[in-house]
């Protein structure tokens, strides 16, 4: 079976006055139908640019190149602007973080919901409206028909994000890219929105590319995880592998930073990662994480670290052997 979305060797570079910013470096992943891949990392790690690169929505100065960029057999590298516009909102839907800024305040909810379907399917307005009502009900919005006449400012944040999801589903996409879909929402609403997204994904067998900084969300929603740092994938694997047996020092460090009720002792020191993320401008040599890494050796600076595959579905980018990494993890737990 071929993957729904396949990305190999994706680079995004932005020319700045200070030099060439290598925002995404050699990122590869694939998303299958009905499966969820999470791209997780801290701000500035390139996760959002990766998504925008797939959608060909990069800012004008950013350049993208890739070995493979394939969606349902279509080579996205060669797709023209027009062809991409046919895909967006049709076959691939995107859900952004801020439902306040991604909905147009001047148009009604109904107008914005119908737009994608009128554009892509050339159906009569009545059909689009019925579909909009059907989907608003599907995402748990009451009095759906009357909501169509409302404007975004009349809805709460949770409702707006539900509208965004309904909008993404209008044309029955094969794939959803969700960029921090619940970051602006309350925890109670977050759980509801994620459950909704997960159940709709199952129902319609969509592929989901989930971009988030929240490891809690990743653990509960994703099937596969790519941990990104400084534009690179530093570790990838199935969700249980990543959380139960993290290999890369960055993944291990990140997991140690989070307080977990019932597991971390209140008042104890939380783990932390010293230092700050370097800006990948100009030539980066060696491991990007080395200056914050507790297991630094001279070899780390000497050469670029390749992604090491230890099985068909598991890889990490570190010079240490898997055994040493596992040992380090046990050391941290003490």
């Amino acid at each position, binding site marked *: 079976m071929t993957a729904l979305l396949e990305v190999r060797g994706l680079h995004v570079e932005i020319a700045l006055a200070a030099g060439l910013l290598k925002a995404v470096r050699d990122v590869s992943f694939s998303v299958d139908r009905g499966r969820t891949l999470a791209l997780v990392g801290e701000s500035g790690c390139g996760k959002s640019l990766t998504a925008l690169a797939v959608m060909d929505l990069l800012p004008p100065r950013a350049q993208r190149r890739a070995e493979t960029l394939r969606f349902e057999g279509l080579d996205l590298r060669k797709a023209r602007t027009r062809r991409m516009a046919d895909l967006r909102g049709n076959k691939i839907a995107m859900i952004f973080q801020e439902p306040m800024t991604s909905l147009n305040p001047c148009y009604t909810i109904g107008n914005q919901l119908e737009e994608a379907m009128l554009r892509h399917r050339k159906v009569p307005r009545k059909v689009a409206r019925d579909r909009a009502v059907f989907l608003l009900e599907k995402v748990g919005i009451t009095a759906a028909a009357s909501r169509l006449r409302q404007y975004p400012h009349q809805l709460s944040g949770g409702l707006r994000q539900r509208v965004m999801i309904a909008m993404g589903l209008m044309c029955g996409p094969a794939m959803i890219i969700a960029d921090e879909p619940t970051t602006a929402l309350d*925890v109670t609403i977050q759980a509801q929105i*994620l459950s909704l997204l997960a159940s709709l994904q199952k129902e319609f067998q969509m592929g989901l590319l989930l971009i988030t900084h929240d490891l809690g969300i990743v*653990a*509960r929603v994703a099937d596969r995880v790519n941990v990104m740092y400084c534009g690179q994938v530093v570790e990838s694997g199935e*969700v249980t592998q990543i*959380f139960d047996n993290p290999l890369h020092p960055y993944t291990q460090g990140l997991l140690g930073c989070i307080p977990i009720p019932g597991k971390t002792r*209140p008042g104890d020191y939380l783990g932390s990662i010293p230092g700050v993320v370097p800006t990948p401008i100009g030539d980066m040599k060696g491991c990007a994480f080395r200056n914050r890494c507790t297991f630094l050796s001279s070899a780390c600076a000497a050469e670029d670290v390749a992604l090491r595959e230890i099985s068909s579905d598991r890889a990490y980018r570190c010079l240490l052997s898997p055994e040493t990494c596992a040992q380090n993890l046990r050391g941290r737990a003490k």
Partner: protein
Amino acid sequence: MSDPMLRIRDLTKTYMVSMGLLKVRRPLRAVNGVSLSVEKGQVLGLVGESGCGKSTIAKLILRLEEMTGGSILLDGKDLSALTRTELARRIQPVFQDPYASLNPRKSVGSIISLPLRVHKVGEAASWKKKVDEIMEIVGLVPRLKHSFPNQLSGGQRQRVAVARALIMRPEIVICDEPTSALDVSVQSQILNLLMDLRRDFGLTYILISHNLAVVEHMASRVAVMYLGRIVEEAETRSIFERPRHPYTRALLASVLTPEPGRGLPETHLGIVYPNPIDPPPGCTFHPRCPEATEVCRQVPPEPLLENGRFVECHHPGN
């Protein structure tokens, strides 16, 4: 028992909200009869959804807003009897967004020393030394003194905000979502710093956060707010082990810990957060409550105090 550091009684804040041209303005009770007390050296966690009034309480304690009713006592003395500067010496805030709370045109040194200048503490010559001291305490390297906020990372900015809050050695620090704008690896650094400072200076914190994992880690007591009222208040451990209010249970259930295989929780909460201008009759939580009965729809629940635990519910769990 001695007087608590901070005692809040029946605190109320009502905003008059415009309903449109030519319409009567209507009251919005952002804080509706809140009573709380905080002992010296404690960390009180204040949790709840956005719009529940937790930040309004912070503003009332800082007197950035004037209360409509009730009283706040600091060490037994009424807060309103203190002048602004006296108050600022004793209570200081650390806000959520270190990008917005620091003046972009002032250097770090100048931002941190501002309280000293305002309060005219000691000689101008001694200010420099004090700034150096506090910067070392919060883990900022001295050379950053001449930097501007835009040259700092998010974590560094929040350290500057903490340094500014602490330079007058206040007794109470109100942390309003201190780490929400920060990355996880930086969040843990700031939390560790706040815990160290509390130990070293005997500080009392009021920690406002929507992140319950953070609250569990930091707080000694937790107060859960819903629609302007405290619905449950107890020691952190007992709240997390045996939540009594259905809303507390829902909040706890919705914490997504990084534990794969546990799936997504079902909170059983309806989707609508009620309009605070038109609060539901009876128990304000009843439209979203999975356990609501007839009495909940009609009668507001009475506060119930048992074994140092406070809960406001007709059907509290055990």
